[in-house]
């Protein structure tokens, strides 16, 4: 079974530039999550989708971050403009539903300089 795919693996950008991350969840998984993990901390939920609807985006900085999940499958997370404090690993995860195992992708390591 293919896992959660993310790209790119690494990205270096200058502050105020924009960047986009892509995630392809496990086939059939209705729930998709984007997490931000700063070095030395636990994953922080940015946004959670159920199919193509947003369940929770309370911790998404909406002035600069946006995310969409078209047709309830692939998802993209965008940052525009980036700030230095956005440097982190961005993890995408998917699951079949409520209180079930979440499968994480390898993440995208973003460095903002």
């Amino acid at each position, binding site marked *: 079974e293919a896992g959660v795919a993310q790209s790119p693996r690494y990205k270096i950008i200058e502050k105020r530039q924009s960047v986009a991350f892509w995630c392809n969840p496990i086939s059939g998984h209705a729930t998709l999550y984007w997490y931000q993990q700063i070095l030395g*901390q*636990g*994953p922080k*939920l940015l946004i959670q989708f159920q199919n193509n609807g947003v369940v929770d985006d*309370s911790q998404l900085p909406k002035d600069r971050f946006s995310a969409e999940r078209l047709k309830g499958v692939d998802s993209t997370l965008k940052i525009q403009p980036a700030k230095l404090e956005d440097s982190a690993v961005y993890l995408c995860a998917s699951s079949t539903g409520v*209180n*079930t*195992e*979440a499968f*994480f992708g390898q993440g995208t390591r973003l460095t903002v300089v």
Partner: protein
Amino acid sequence: QQPVQSPQAVILREGEDAVINCSSSKALYSVHWYRQKHGEAPVFLMILLKGGEQKGHEKISASFNEKKQQSSLYLTASQLSYSGTYFCGTEMGGYQKVTFGIGTKLQVIP
């Protein structure tokens, strides 16, 4: 509300046991445990639901005391492969938002 994990770090020799605790100031519906090795994605260990159940996964088990809003992860006869950072995630019911703690870094040495 981010759960509090303790200890923050622990070093074990192979074969020793360890306990990692996770506590919340809010009533919990479920607790999720994951392990993350350096540079890798978190990997699921187990989920405990409200009801105080205990679960086992080979030599790794966990308990959930909903009255105390606490969960503990037990690692017995530790192996080198157990090294990594262990995260507990808590969910308060009603919706599926899991909030993770800052993690417990565990190192098993020969």
